[in-house]
């Protein structure tokens, strides 16, 4: 549909770039306005959320959610889709899984100790939750942006205008047919 009218270049590469840095895939496709919009909205939301959580809300633990649901960090599944900005958490989680005493990148985006997390919950309360929501929603929104880079938009102006004109013509045809039938009766 829209792919015929908008040049998506290499859609797979564009989708990968869109995951890596929100907006980069669209920039690669020459859709610079959209690239800017996605970068501002998604990265802005992610960074504000990250700051609200004092940089300690994006982390990942390799645990089985069925065996240890309290230790599982489901919000990272959403945050992961922000791309490069959330990737250190996955690297840290993997390194810590194999080497718990590691101090890779000085613990940046590593899982905070439980006493630190408990202190933050008491101190920040709802702000901490909002930080988690911001960063998770940013990742989920980037899924839409990745899909847009891969497949193009659902509608473009021309498609919608054509669809509207077609439905209007169909309605007019139906109305005239109805009038003819009534006339015949």
């Amino acid at each position, binding site marked *: 549909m829209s792919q015929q009218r908008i040049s998506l270049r290499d859609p797979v590469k564009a989708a990968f770039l869109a995951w890596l840095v929100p907006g980069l895939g669209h920039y690669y496709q020459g859709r610079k306005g959209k690239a800017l919009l996605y970068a501002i909205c998604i990265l802005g939301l992610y960074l504000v959320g990250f700051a609200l959580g004092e940089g300690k809300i994006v982390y990942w633990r390799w645990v089985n959610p069925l065996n240890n649901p309290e230790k599982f960090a489901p919000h990272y599944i959403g945050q992961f889709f922000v791309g490069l900005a959330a990737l250190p958490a996955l690297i840290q989680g993997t390194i810590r899984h194999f080497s718990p005493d590691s101090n890779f990148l000085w613990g940046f985006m590593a899982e905070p100790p439980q006493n630190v997390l408990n202190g933050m919950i008491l101190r920040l309360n709802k*702000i901490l939750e909002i930080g988690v929501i911001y960063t998770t929603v940013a990742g989920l929104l980037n899924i839409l942006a990745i899909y847009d880079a891969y497949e193009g938009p659902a509608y473009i*102006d021309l498609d919608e205008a054509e669809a509207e004109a077609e439905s209007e013509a169909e309605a007019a045809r139906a109305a005239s047919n109805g009038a003819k039938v009534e006339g015949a009766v």
Partner: protein
Amino acid sequence: MGSFSNVYWLVLPLVVAISLVYSASRHEAWPRIWSRSLRLCLWILAILIGTRAILLLINTQV
């Protein structure tokens, strides 16, 4: 974080970002992106405010 006396204001940037990104992923023409995102933003806010009002009413009357 005493500066955030009312955390409800933090819903606003979230709703604006969701509306803009959703509309941009559906449309390509800028006038349509702006108009659809404004419409979606107002719908989400109206639903949120309506739900909040109903819950407040129930909470204060019951």
